[in-house]
Structures are given as structure tokens and as C-alpha cells.
């Protein structure tokens, strides 16, 4: 079998270059969406999990995985979507959060901040441009399911906050 040439680590390495379609500075691996790679005689199975159940980027991510692996000669690739364990922003690496901040998106705080009644206004979100915590929620929902809109009272710039989840 051709798959024998590839180890699980090789596959992970190939997939670690696939960017998140909506935040291209971070990869699907850094986001914590890439859960596992299973190699068997039948081929290669890649396990992914969505950030939000309705995340419209999942189809594109699946296509990207299949294309990347087939371009690199990995045959019989299957992509499986799993819901458990439920994705959390705590899986995001510190490097990923740093890249996100430099890209202009305030990275998520720890998921411990999500309580039933607490939302936006009770959190201290740092402005990704000037690091001020003098920020205010504009909208709980933003351009994608994973983000909210904020503005910075210090540098007067609006910015997106990646919600903790």
C-alpha cells in the first residue's frame, strides 16, 4: 500500500499548512479543528470538528484537506466530522492567539468567562491595536459565528473579538 510511505506525523505536517478560510493567518491545526489522523490499510481518515455547528467553512476545509493530501500523493483520503468533544477556544495555541491579535482580531479569553448571564460587557477585552482595555461591545454577533464587534475608546478603532466558546 502506498499509504505505508506516510506516517501519522507526516500527514499532520502536511495538514498543518491549511489555513482557516475565515482567518487565513492561523491554520486549522492551530485553531484546534484538526482532531486526529487515522492510517489504516483502507487509507487515511482525517477527523475534524466544527467551531460552531453551522460553520459554513467546513465544506471548504474538507475540500482543502482532500486536495492537499492528494497533491502530496496520499491516496484514499476520507474526512470525518465529529461533534465530541465539543470544540472550545481553549484548544487554540498561544501562537495562534498572537497571530490573530497581529491580524487585528482580539483573541478569545479563557472559556471560563462564558456564564449563562454574562456576556460582552462584563469582559475586559484588550484592543488588538493599542492594547487598551478601555473597550466597549458594539454587537454580540459579528461577520462570522465566532466573532463579536467591539470598539476601543482609547484609539477609537473598531475591532473584532473572537468569542470565547
Amino acid at each position, binding site marked *: 500500500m502506498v499509504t505505508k510511505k506516510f506516517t501519522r506525523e507526516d500527514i499532520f505536517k502536511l495538514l498543518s499548512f491549511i489555513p482557516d478560510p475565515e482567518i487565513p493567518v492561523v491554520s486549522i491545526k492551530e485553531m484546534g479543528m484538526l482532531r486526529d489522523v487515522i492510517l489504516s490499510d483502507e487509507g487515511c481518515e482525517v477527523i475534524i470538528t*466544527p467551531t*460552531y*455547528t*453551522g*460553520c*459554513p467553512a467546513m465544506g471548504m476545509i474538507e475540500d482543502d484537506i482532500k486536495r492537499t493530501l492528494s497533491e502530496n500523493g496520499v491516496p484514499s483520503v476520507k474526512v470525518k466530522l*465529529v*461533534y*465530541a*468533544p*465539543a*470544540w472550545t477556544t481553549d484548544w487554540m495555541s498561544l501562537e495562534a492567539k498572537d497571530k490573530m491579535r497581529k491580524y487585528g482580531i482580539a483573541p478569545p479569553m479563557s472559556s471560563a468567562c*462564558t456564564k*449563562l*448571564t*454574562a*456576556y460582552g460587557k462584563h469582559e475586559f477585552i484588550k484592543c488588538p491595536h493599542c492594547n487598551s482595555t478601555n473597550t466597549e461591545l*458594539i*454587537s*454580540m*454577533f*459579528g*461577520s462570522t*459565528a465566532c466573532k463579536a*464587534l467591539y470598539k476601543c475608546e482609547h484609539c477609537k478603532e473598531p475591532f473584532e473579538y473572537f*468569542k470565547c*466558546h
Partner: protein
Amino acid sequence: MNKQKAIFNYALRLGDNSLVLGHRLAELCSKGPILEEDLALTNMALDHIGRAQAFLGYAAQVEGKNKTADDLAYKRAERSFYNNLIMELPDKDFAATIARQLLVSSFEYFLYTELMKSKDETIAAISAKAVKEVRYHLAHSSDWTCRLGEGTAVSHEKMQNALNDLWMFTGELFEMNDADAILIKEGIAIDLNSIKQQWLEHVNGVILEATLTLPSSDFMQTGSRKGIHTEYLGHILSEMQYLQRAYPTAQW
């Protein structure tokens, strides 16, 4: 009814509730009262449609007739839909949308919190995912209930009227049938009576904070467990299913 059929019915009901409410919320795209609300309502629509895809996909798998989530969403008639009536009611105004979201999100929050412990792994996994999203929806509708309740005399009156109008559709949320009975024994479904008090207390808490009054009417509408719906569901389906009905093998 055997266990497999009961799981099929149960997953179908959870999926239909998400699908129909997701469709109603999606209809508000570009019609939100302000831009931020347009974003909020469509984001919540997306969460519901995602959840519908997960539950209907599981229902299709359990049924074992080689169908997909799309087949179940697009190729059933209204008498085969089991969503609660409250999901299909039209959005008369923004107060009606917020009142429905408050009543339904509160219910969903307690439902999915309990279903996370389901002995059915797939139902537990989807529920664990759903509860994180619902928590956020509930914060949104609770916030808006207070803003409208404590806003102007007009917004207060509209919000109170919306709650009064929808109240008779809340009894059905807690109705159970044979499928529930079988699955409660197996530890798969939950006894909906067990979350009714929590739901009522939470809803009442928000309503009081919003300076509104909990509706007191006892009359409750019913029908959806048997597939009997209001006239609105047919109109939703005629739009949602048009493409698949007119071009049965269409793909894009």
C-alpha cells in the same frame, strides 16, 4: 414502537425544531431593525440550521433507508414534521421575534444541558455543542427583553403583547409521546417535566427584570407531536422545499 424507531422520531423532532426556527430567523436577513440585529438573527439562524443538519443527519442514519439530512428536510410534507408550533409562527414584529427567542432559548438551554448526559453518544455530542451556542442566544434574548420591557411605553406594550400571544404555545414544548417514554427508560431522552420548573423560573426572572408580567392564561395549543400544524408551516415548506421539489436531483 421499538428503540430504533423511537430514536428516529426523537432526533427528527429535535432536528425539525432547529430547522423550522432556523428558517424563520433566516427570513429576517436584511429585515433586522438595526444592522447589529440583522447580524444577530442571521448568526442564530446559522446555529439552528447547523444543529438541524446534525440531528437530521443522525435521524437519517438511524432510519437506515440510505437517506441524508437533506432528504429529510426537503422531501417530507408538513404532516410528517414534528417541530413545536411556536417555531413556525410568523414574526409579526421585533417584539414577537424576541419573545419567541426568549421562551425557546430558555427551553433549549435546559433541554440540551440535560441531554448532554444522554446515553446516546450522538445526541449527547450534538447537545454539548448546542448548549454553548444556546447560552449565547439566551443572553441575547434576555438582554433585548429587558431593553424593550424597560424602554418606551410603546416597546413595553409590544413586548407584553408578544409574550401574551405566544404563551399558549409554550405548553407544547413539554409534551411527550411514546418515543419519549421508551427513551427515558433507556436514559437517552429526558423527562421534560423535570426541566419545566427551571424553565419557568428563568423566564419569569427575565420577565420581572424587564418590568413585564408573566402571562397567566392556562389554555395551551397542541398538535405537533401528531404532525398537526398551524397554516404557517405549509408556507414555510413551499418556499424551503421549492428547489428540491421542482428539480429533484439538483446539486450545486
